[in-house]
């Protein structure tokens, strides 16, 4: 499903952060605690989500824990899309 946020987020994160030759990411790969996405780079991920889904994620909700896997990020997007 091309429109599934999980697939869109996975595609973005893979293109944006994955080094050449690294193992492919899954929806549950730890991104931040696994060292794939650093704290500086989280910012552009947040901006991507906000622009793509026309949402605003408050700073205090954009925690490393909330951004740690594609599944968690998709949950976050869902929560703010509904709100």
């Amino acid at each position, binding site marked *: 499903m091309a429109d599934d946020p999980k697939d869109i987020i996975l595609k973005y994160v893979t293109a944006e952060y994955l080094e050449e030759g690294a193992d492919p990411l899954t929806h549950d790969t730890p991104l931040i605690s696994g060292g794939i996405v*650093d704290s*500086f780079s989280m910012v552009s991920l947040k901006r991507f989500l906000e622009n793509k889904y026309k949402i605003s994620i408050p700073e205090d909700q954009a925690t490393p824990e909330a951004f740690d896997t594609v599944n968690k990020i998709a949950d976050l997007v869902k929560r703010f899309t509904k709100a």
Partner: protein
Amino acid sequence: MAYTDKTREMYQGTLQGLKEAGLFKQERLIHSPQAADIEVEFPAGSPLRKVINMCANNYLGLSSHPDVIQAAHEGLRTRGYGMSSVRFICGTQDIHKELERRTTEFLGTEDTILFPSCMDANAGVFEAVLTKDDVMISDRLVHASLIDGIRLCGAMPDTFKHSDMAHLEQKLQMHQDRRLRLVITDGVFSMDGDTAKLDEMVALCDKYDAMLLVDESHASGFIGRTGRGTHEKYGVLGKIDIITSTFGKALGGATGGCVSGRKELVEMCRQKARPYLFSNTIAPVIVAGILKVFDMLMASTERRDKLERNAAYWRKGLQDAGFVLKEGDTPIVPVMLFNAKLAQDFSRALYDEGVYAVGFFFPVVAQSQARIRTQLSAGHEIHHLDKALEAFTKVGRKFDILGKTRQEIIDRFGM
């Protein structure tokens, strides 16, 4: 709070953990001045051993040059040992201003401010010139001191893939709504020895209304036809908004750093950069030595030319011997071993053969990118390089990696 047994044990446990993970750093004692030939005590308590140094940042071989030492003696005699002050109280001598003027002239910028080190320059510059309304877009392989400076600043951080101009352009487009954009890169990347594509970066910064900061610590004095730096190599002299650099490598190798660039940005550092405001001035003896270095570099390109020849000779020798190298044309030549333990064992075996070159592995470089980083100097003569090549070849043969591909080395030793 007392330093209790429990607290002590906690720290001992942490340090033991570093040892067990192979991340514990130990200093090797050098009993001679910095040079191509040094006398080393390693391991601690061992008899001194004369070895060839292949891992110093002494690119121009000026760290122990007699003319620099003589100038430093003269500075000590005429301006004293220390100033016991920060710059803006009573720590600025005529020679500090003279060094700022000479650095500006050498780098081809508008103005310069000295810092105790380039680490301090990088720690202070971002906070001094940016606010929370701005964005800092850095190459993902910039030096740790830039990362620390970015962390200390309230502006938004972002990154682009190493030397990937298309990705940088995407980021510049994404951040058009910020008040200011500052793109951040090393000129020469210290672990890989490759250079930033400054001509393309300047063009992108012009197109998307961004400023450009370049850390030239591994470039000032020898990259470019007259050694001005990476901006000279790429034909963009005068177009870099902020250059940070060090006097602790090619330019005498003692201490000190600077921010050099647009005069308003330099003045912002003079007013607001905390490592400048709250740390001592550079000692007069150091300033006098650096001024002599600039005299020498303005008079002749002989030393950077020799360094360039040495680097080409060394790179070709290693290639012919069958090592896997990182591509590049700077005096930083990484010999790729991929496996951390192999890098450590290789370094130790080189030492036994009379060559001092250390291994680098995760977290200093990425996983499975372990290497011996070799660095050339104008202080090396061909006989040094021939002897070091002989040692590398002997050790390479011992570990049976000569002529082997990356994959073959990984298959044998692991990632």
